[in-house]
């Protein structure tokens, strides 16, 4: 259990973390989300006693990290995959950390095997890719077989196989009853990995709730309606009828509508009354990525000078494939055994390139397979 109370960190005039209070419970994966520069890493460092908070405190099992008896056996952390001496081999890097923690040297080769680096154990880590560096950092975090694990952006630079592996690893560690705290700036990744979310922006707490709750609260639902192609008359007739019935209708670039304010059966009734045939009528939730960006857009420190939302917002929605039953699909945290996942199999190519929907499609397809 990690508990932060009123955690505040200032560097001169800049406040990196402001009055942050949260709890990270054992047995589940807790996602720590925020844009770049939002204070995630600073918070992680304060948890580990590396940075001293300006105000407030953070404890692990009731004690400050630096007061823990045998800290490296209770807490393991991956802070920065590149934070290794490049001239040292992977094995020696882990060996010196193991020795410092009083862990038998034999454990080094075990964790190298766990992360799949046994083949390059003798190589200097300078030559490692970012993904290999992440694996080495994860190995270091696992050395002491700790009950509390912190991972700062563990999937950065990993290939799809590696991302899947990290995801399963986190879940498995949590299933063993450990406290797992994973930071990321990718909502899509956290939606698949985490059971609970702590979202921060500009160092302040934006949300602290379960993933289901986050989705329920933050994703507005809408209906996607499509009339037969090349029949502008029917299109306009339906628009008028739906507006008259109290709905809000937005055109989408591919010719479909996005209708809010009317339940699906009502849309069907209105269309029937207007004698308009429908090629599609599907329920949708805005993606988690959208909800997340909506929540943090006021709290983004670093953004491109061009319209920040233009490139990100629209494609998510328009690219979302028509998957019936999406809205009804509950997001059960235990519902995804990623081993059963076949990325790219269950959804049409329209979803490719849109991270939010893609991630959710995985989930849907898994549920369908179960």
């Amino acid at each position: 259990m990690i508990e932060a109370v009123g955690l505040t960190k200032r560097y001169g005039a800049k406040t990196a973390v402001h009055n942050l209070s949260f709890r990270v419970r054992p047995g589940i994966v807790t996602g720590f989300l925020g844009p770049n520069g939002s204070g995630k890493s600073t918070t992680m460092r304060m948890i580990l006693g590396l940075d001293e908070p300006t105000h407030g405190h953070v404890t692990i099992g009731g004690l400050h990290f630096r007061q823990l008896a045998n800290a490296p056996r209770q807490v393991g952390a991956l802070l920065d995959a590149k934070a290794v001496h490049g001239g040292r081999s992977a094995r020696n890097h882990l060996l010196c950390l193991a020795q410092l923690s009083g862990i038998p040297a034999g454990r080094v080769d075990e964790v190298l095997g766990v992360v799949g680096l046994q083949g390059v154990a003798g190589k200097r880590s300078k030559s490692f890719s970012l993904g290999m560096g992440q694996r080495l950092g994860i190995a270091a975090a696992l050395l002491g077989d700790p009950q509390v694990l912190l991972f700062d952006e563990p999937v950065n630079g990993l290939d799809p196989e590696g991302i899947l592996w990290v995801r399963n690893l986190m879940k498995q560690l949590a299933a063993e009853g450990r406290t797992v705290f994973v930071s990321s700036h990718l909502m899509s990744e956290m939606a698949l990995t985490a059971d609970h979310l702590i979202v921060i922006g500009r160092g302040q707490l934006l949300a602290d709730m379960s993933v289901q709750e986050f989705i329920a609260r933050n994703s507005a639902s809408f209906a996607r309606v499509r009339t037969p192609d090349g029949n502008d008359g029917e299109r306009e007739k339906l628009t008028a009828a739906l507006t008259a019935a109290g709905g809000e209708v937005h055109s989408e670039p591919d010719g479909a509508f996005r209708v809010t304010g009317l339940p699906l059966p009502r849309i069907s009734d209105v269309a029937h009354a207007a004698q308009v045939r429908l090629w599609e009528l599907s329920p949708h939730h805005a993606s988690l990525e959208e909800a997340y960006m909506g929540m943090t857009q006021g709290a983004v420190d670093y953004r491109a000078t061009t319209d920040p939302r233009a490139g990100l917002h629209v494609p998510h929605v328009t690219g979302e494939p028509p998957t019936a039953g999406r809205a009804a699909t509950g997001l059960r945290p235990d519902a995804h055994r990623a081993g059963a996942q076949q990325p790219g199999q269950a959804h049409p190519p329209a979803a490719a390139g849109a991270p939010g929907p893609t991630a959710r499609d995985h989930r849907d397809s898994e549920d369908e397979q179960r």
Partner: protein
Amino acid sequence: MSTPRPQQTEASAPAPAPADGPTHDNPGGLAPVPVRPAGFGDALRSEWTKIRSVRSTLWTLGVMLIVVVGIGLLTAWGLNDSAWVGMPLLAPGLFGIMLGQVCVLTLGVLVISSEYGTGMIRATFTACPRRSRVLTAKAVVFFLLSFVATAVACTVTALVNWWVLGDQKVPPFLRGEAAGRFEDSVKDGRLIATTGEWLGATVGPALYVALLGLLALAVGALLRHSAGAVTTMLGVVLMPLLLALFMQSASLKPVQEKLIEYSALNALASFYRIPMSDGSGNGWDMLGILAAVTAVVLGGAYALIAKRDV
């Protein structure tokens, strides 16, 4: 989260999830890892692993050995023709160690600043929240290693000088009352090295240079930046003598003399019995001063490392 935890974990952990992949089963607890508190001996072992597993150690100490012994051989060979060299028997060893000490300074800085430079220090301090223990272990391992390496280099050089230059006849004007500092070093009209000179050409400079390296380590811990700390140390070692060189006016004479007397290079020269100023002792007093300075700076490093954010 109490002590018997890993065993409990093993017992109560659910069976590993159905095969996700062949190599990634049961990540956390492959086998129960025996739990015991880590101590200072563990930190020493860790620092020994660190220092022997990077190439900078091999390079700096290797270059130091080559420079000290190589220059020792060259000077001995060059002076071999002279019937009377004009300095104490082991004194030519100074030239090598004057250059070689720079390598030891560099290693001293790198031992700690490379951890800050790469970010490794965070992993280190996560594995050992008692930061003073890490600093002490680094200091001990580095000091012993650099002392042994420097002592070997200096001893080899001293033996070379003794072997090659050992048959010098002391000129008549330096015998008897006029001998001055050569008084004890003359036996049967020939130049010898006294026990004090042997110590001053082997253990003395090795201790001094290793201590200077320790000061460099402390400066590295304070500045946390390799280039900055190395530059600072070079300044500390070289600047007093360089400044003194340009203080030629009579009014600055006392300052000039003190700068020369207390410069690090004069301390080494004193060990070899060829001091640059008349007031200098035989080097051991300077070693005491350096030890005091190092203790103060190291104390500052302890104080800062304990509370500074990393």
